[in-house]
């Protein structure tokens, strides 16, 4: 064999094809979001695949996307409103609960799916290269399909109870985006950790359950003591749920502080999660 001398620069290809250097990872792996953008079609197709197979061979099909939030709402109404006398800021409790359950279930589903996504796709990871970030992202975005179906039910419910949204309804995409971002941020951390520590799989359902009680889904923010609020708002889902209720049901002032804190927390988890994921993804194929 011919010994090849190392050179600082990659060689030049005759017809000018880009030359990429593959080498051992550095301590800080760049995010390289442009590569993610180049693979957007793959993200789209993986998403499409997941949505397609989601309700295949089920008798009820997409109705499942309605059953879950609907019956949770019924149970909440009976348990919290009837038995527990939980206030709902003067709104009909079913609408009050459903307007929070919808984003909550989007978040809970997206978080659960993305946490397990990398491990679930281990065949893909050990056989083909593509930006690994696509996997948890696709898992998160699949949740939007159920969310849109559930949204139809929310509209019907609001019509039934005669609650009309105001102009604030235009801010809905922001809250949806914040819910998706929160799920992605935490999902990135957990999906990468799950590759090495399968404990994550058992932690997530438990985490989601506890998290819901730390979020004003079944009860209004107003029952939380004033002095606890700043701490409480560290939970980014507080901002999401409050934003949703405000946009749809329009009671009270815009939830400014809670949202600002939520957004800051999400951003911190998201950026650190991206870097952590990029750093560990290099060993996914070896460890998973």
């Amino acid at each position, binding site marked *: *064999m*011919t*010994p*090849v*001398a*190392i050179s600082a620069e*990659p*060689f030049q*290809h*005759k*017809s000018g*094809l*880009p*030359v*990429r*250097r*593959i*080498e*051992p*990872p550095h301590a800080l792996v760049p995010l390289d979001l442009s590569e993610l953008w180049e693979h957007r*079609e*793959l993200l789209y*197709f*993986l998403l*499409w*695949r997941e949505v*397609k*197979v989601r309700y*295949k*061979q089920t008798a009820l099909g997409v109705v499942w996307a309605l059953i879950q939030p609907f019956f949770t709402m019924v149970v909440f109404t009976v348990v919290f409103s009837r038995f527990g006398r939980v206030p709902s800021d003067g709104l009909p409790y079913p609408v009050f609960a459903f307007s929070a359950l919808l984003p909550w279930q989007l978040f809970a589903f997206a978080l659960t799916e993305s946490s397990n996504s990398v491990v679930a796709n281990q*065949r*893909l*990871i*050990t*056989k*083909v*290269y*593509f930006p690994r970030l696509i996997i948890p992202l696709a898992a998160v975005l699949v949740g939007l399909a159920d969310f849109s179906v559930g949204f139809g039910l929310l509209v019907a419910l609001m019509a039934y109870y005669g609650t009309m949204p105001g102009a604030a309804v235009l801010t809905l995409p922001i809250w949806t985006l914040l819910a998706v971002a929160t799920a992605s941020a935490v999902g990135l951390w957990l999906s990468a950790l799950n*590759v*090495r*520590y*399968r*404990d994550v799989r058992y932690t997530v359902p438990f985490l989601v359950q506890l998290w819901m009680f730390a979020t004003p889904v079944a009860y209004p923010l107003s029952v939380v003591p004033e002095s606890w609020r700043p701490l409480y708002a560290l939970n980014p889902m507080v901002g999401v749920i409050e934003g949703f209720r405000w946009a749809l049901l329009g009671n009270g002032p815009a939830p400014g502080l809670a949202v600002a804190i939520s957004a800051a927390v999400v951003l911190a988890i998201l950026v650190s999660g991206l870097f952590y994921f990029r750093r560990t993804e*290099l*060993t996914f*194929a*070896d*460890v*998973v």
Partner: protein
Amino acid sequence: MSLVIRAHDLGKQYRIGTRERYGSLRDSVAKVLARPLFTRSSRASIEHGTIWALKHASFEVRDGEILGIIGRNGSGKSTLLKILSRITSPTTGCVDIAGRVGSLLEVGTGFHPELTGRENVIVNGAILGMKRQEIDRKFDEIVAFAGVESFIDTPVKHYSSGMQMRLAFAVAAHLQPNILLVDEVLAVGDAEFQRRCLSKMRDVSVEGRTVILVSHQMNQIRRLCESVMWLDGGEIRHVGPVGETIRRYEHAIAATGEAPGASTNFRRWDLADGGHTVTSLNRPVTIRAHVRLSEPVVGGHYGVTVYNSRDAVVAGWAFEPVALDAGSHILQITIPELPVQPGSYQVGFALFTGGNNLTGGHLVDKWTGVPPLTLDVPPLGHAQDIWAGVLNVPATFTMHSDSRTPELQPLI
């Protein structure tokens, strides 16, 4: 010919058993606690439980080259492909690669049983790195290549495994990256389809693309590659023209007396004179398989098959009953003559316990003999290979007008 790949001192180190021991959080915590504070695990102790799957690999590949990679199981072939395709990152060294790399390390990656053939082609194509337009453009060609036109809108779970395989292959065969990495995947599928895939891949390199092919099938390597890299224990033993490299490799294997990735039971094979070459016509041929059994074989059967370089079965036999104790044995068959064309033949061996050659039974082991059987005999047929056929038998020729008795004239 421009350079497309240049590797310098590539190496990949694995922790032994990493795959199995992804461990739980508790183990990690325990490990940290067990370690005295402030002493980081020393380099030496890291070295201890590790293995270099690939070491000091430096090489170059040029435009349009078809490079074969051969070596025993665990010699680093797949690791090298995984580094080149960026599935895993190297521990040492670096490699520069020009242009788009497509890898085919598994057939049908991402196939979903609930999706239709059409949907799977689209998703699988995207996973392998095709653009939407590219898939649309080649869709009909892919489906025709796989021969599944009438089932294209049926979920693939209703396909036979052969159909699934063909469809998956068809997608892969239509990949057009600058560099195509292929790992052993051609070992499956029927011979005719394999041949079409091979020729499709060859087209790829005619268009100036580069192919790197890992295979245990020396015949495939011979037919496809100009140059071959031989990996042994994670290191490059030789890179060179196909004939020479394969010869060295096979000599090395013959020297150790055991086959590469030798099956657990079949250790080696030879002819009655100890070699692997038949040199004379019209003589009995004895094929001996040396087997070592950990379990006895009861009421079994034994099969030997001879394949030509186009993977067609030239001759095959099955023998029963077979009763063997655990331990070493020689299974010997004798054929009065093997009147086939000169050249290289694969010999397949299979040993079953229970059943017979009609009912099957339970496979103990099967093995494609290494090195291949060589027939170094004078050709008796047509001078041009394509007209000489499979059999190597003499013919006599006469010419006569209808009244006279002809004189016999042997051709040779």
